């Protein structure tokens, strides 16, 4: 029993793979037609932009409906039990609406259903939190939300809800540990341990459960978050600054003071480089895109961490040198992989988000151009050569 037909989720996957083979000339068009015949998919196919828009406007509509009901039931907020019941009823109503729409319009993660599911879960969580006595600590509220959210994930396979479930789980860990005097010291180790352990559990789960295709997107986001937190929790900058932020303020010291060095600093310096290195090694061995990308980001974070605590030379030189190294490495690898080597190639494949990349490139170039052009008049006026300049920038 699932919100969407799991068989059709699988069929959709088979179709997509067959379409890819057909594009590569490995399947004949009539074979693809036969595959489509044999693997029916009833889901509605939209495009991503109308889905994004439908998600936003569903949120507006539900928000408007909720506010309207609150207007009719003014004074409800003061009575915790009644307000909780109201939220629970609204949540259930929203979820029923989602169920009806999925049946009627064959939605499959088409925007409106995602929005309704997320908002329905949010209303139910709100109901739970209103009804709970006021002295229930934050960490317990987070922890209680996790099974509820996971239930939703089980039924819908929704990515956003799984993300929120992970946030709630980490929130519970974080706030719960800080209840203890030793919690601040243990925090990075606990975060690393639970992230790593959860990642292993999920890996087993992916193979063990019968409907792993239904959860493919949710598993994907979980991998990103868990491995990302694992690496971040070992990063020296994160540990030291977070530790400084959480420390009790020292009497007589005000304002931004530098975070003090942490205990076991050498260990965290080691971990700062260990995780990106491990990800790179595993990523190359297992040809895992997620691990390779995380290792690149992790190495960038490690280098920035070193620069942050041991700044040598001005920023301009540092940026130039880092840029040069990146260009050199990329150029060398692109030339090296012109022929496929060790199972890697520079030739783009079908999975690549070509359109996304081109647009990201254009957007960042626009940003850079905007910033560069924007800087010049300021510098000009800031240079003091124009008395009282800066008013009315008509250039």
């Amino acid at each position: 029993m699932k919100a969407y037909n799991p068989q059709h989720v699988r069929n959709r996957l088979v179709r997509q793979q067959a379409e890819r083979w057909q594009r590569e000339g490995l399947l004949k068009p009539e074979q693809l037609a036969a595959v489509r015949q044999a693997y029916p998919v009833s889901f509605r196919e939209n495009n991503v932009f109308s889905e994004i828009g439908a998600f936003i406007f569903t949120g507006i509509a539900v928000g408007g409906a909720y506010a309207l009901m609150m207007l009719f039931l003014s004074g409800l907020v003061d009575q915790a039990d009644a307000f909780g019941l109201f939220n629970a009823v609204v949540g259930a109503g929203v979820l029923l609406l989602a169920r009806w729409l999925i049946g009627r319009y064959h939605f499959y993660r088409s925007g409106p259903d995602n929005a309704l599911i997320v908002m329905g879960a949010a209303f139910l969580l709100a109901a739970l939190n209103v009804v709970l006595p006021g002295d229930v600590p934050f960490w317990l509220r987070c922890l209680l939300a996790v099974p509820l959210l996971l239930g939703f994930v089980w039924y819908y396979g929704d990515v956003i809800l799984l993300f929120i479930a992970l946030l709630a789980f980490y929130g519970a860990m974080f706030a719960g540990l800080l209840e203890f005097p030793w919690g601040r010291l243990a925090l990075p180790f606990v975060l690393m341990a639970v992230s790593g352990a959860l990642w292993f559990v999920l890996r087993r789960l992916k193979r063990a459960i019968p409907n792993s295709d239904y959860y493919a997107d949710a598993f994907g986001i979980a991998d990103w978050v868990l491995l990302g937190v694992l690496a971040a929790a070992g990063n020296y900058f994160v540990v030291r600054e977070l530790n400084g932020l959480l420390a009790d303020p020292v009497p007589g010291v005000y304002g931004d003071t530098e975070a003090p060095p942490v205990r076991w600093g050498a260990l965290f310096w080691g971990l700062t480089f260990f995780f990106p290195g491990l990800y790179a090694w595993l990523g190359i061995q297992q040809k895992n895109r997620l691990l390779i990308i995380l290792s690149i980001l992790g190495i960038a974070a490690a280098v920035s961490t070193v620069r942050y605590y041991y700044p040598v030379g001005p920023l301009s030189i540092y940026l130039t040198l880092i840029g040069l190294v990146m260009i050199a490495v990329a150029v060398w690898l692109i030339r090296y992989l012109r022929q496929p080597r060790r199972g890697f190639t520079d030739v783009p494949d079908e999975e690549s988000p070509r359109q996304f990349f081109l647009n990201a490139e254009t957007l960042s170039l626009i940003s850079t151009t905007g910033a560069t052009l924007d800087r010049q008049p300021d510098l000009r006026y800031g240079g003091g050569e124009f008395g009282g300049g800066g008013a009315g920038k008509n250039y």
Partner: protein
Amino acid sequence: MSPKEILDQLHERGLLPTGQHALIDRVERERPFSLHWELRSVLYVGILFMSSGLGLLIYENYDALGHVTILAGIGLLCVAAFAYAWSVRPPWTPALTQSQSPFGDYALVLGCLLFLSLEGYAQYEYNLFGDRYGLVTFLPAILFLALAYRFDHRGVLGMGLTALMAWVGVTVRPLDLYLKTNFFDERVIYSALMLSGVLIGAAMLLQRRGIKPHFTFSYLLVIGNLMLVALLAGMFNVPDLRLLFAVGLALACMLFDRYARREQSFLFGLMAAIYGYIGLSYLLFHYLRPDEYVSTFYLLLSGGVLVAYLLTYKKQKIDPDAPPTGPISR
């Protein structure tokens, strides 16, 4: 399901003959892992870092000799980048094409970024353009647009359009969600509208003529947003002409919607929906001043209507008879 499992299942169900099953199995097993976009991202971020590092370096004061050396070095690097890009330039064609070298496009970007830094510094230090500030942005705009067409580079086209927007007084940094301008100044609104009208008209004309038709997307994305923001700004800030701007906005949204449906490019449909919705809601709240009951009911109703409207954008069916693109992994 992994590709292998799908393959075996298709075979079991009699949809694939054994020979073909073995062939696809081999292709899948030997398919190399593509690092194409990861490597280009690293290369590209490296270029951004290096050019901004060098851009900062210019403004740091060293003794006179060192300073001249730095300037000369950056100038040489800029010339070298352009020269390399030119040496591997694609043949001129109005259709989509690409550089003869994987690095040509990136050298061009580096050259353009360094040119921008040097040009800004020339104005800052030597007052090259005097009081004609317009030239500081107009000159690179024209240069970048020309280079974009010659080299078929959408990123450089975006740079040129951004410089043109700066020329009429609008600074955008989309990645920082940053927009700086003075839309209370009516002149800025009118020049932004005139610029966007001219550019979108030009883009449509060029598309019809078949000259780099794939550039239209960038034009509409960058300049289309400028136009819609300027129309909204006119509606908010110019009370005398509010209804005229409202009509203009409605017209622009209708045109974007038509374009989105014709070209199956639904990003523009989403843009039309969001800007149109903001404009409509503003007019409603401004003129009718509804009470809170009507306001919340409006949110409920309008949200529902827009969802229904957006879902009328249907994904184009992939034509199963389309010619295959050929195996990629060879």
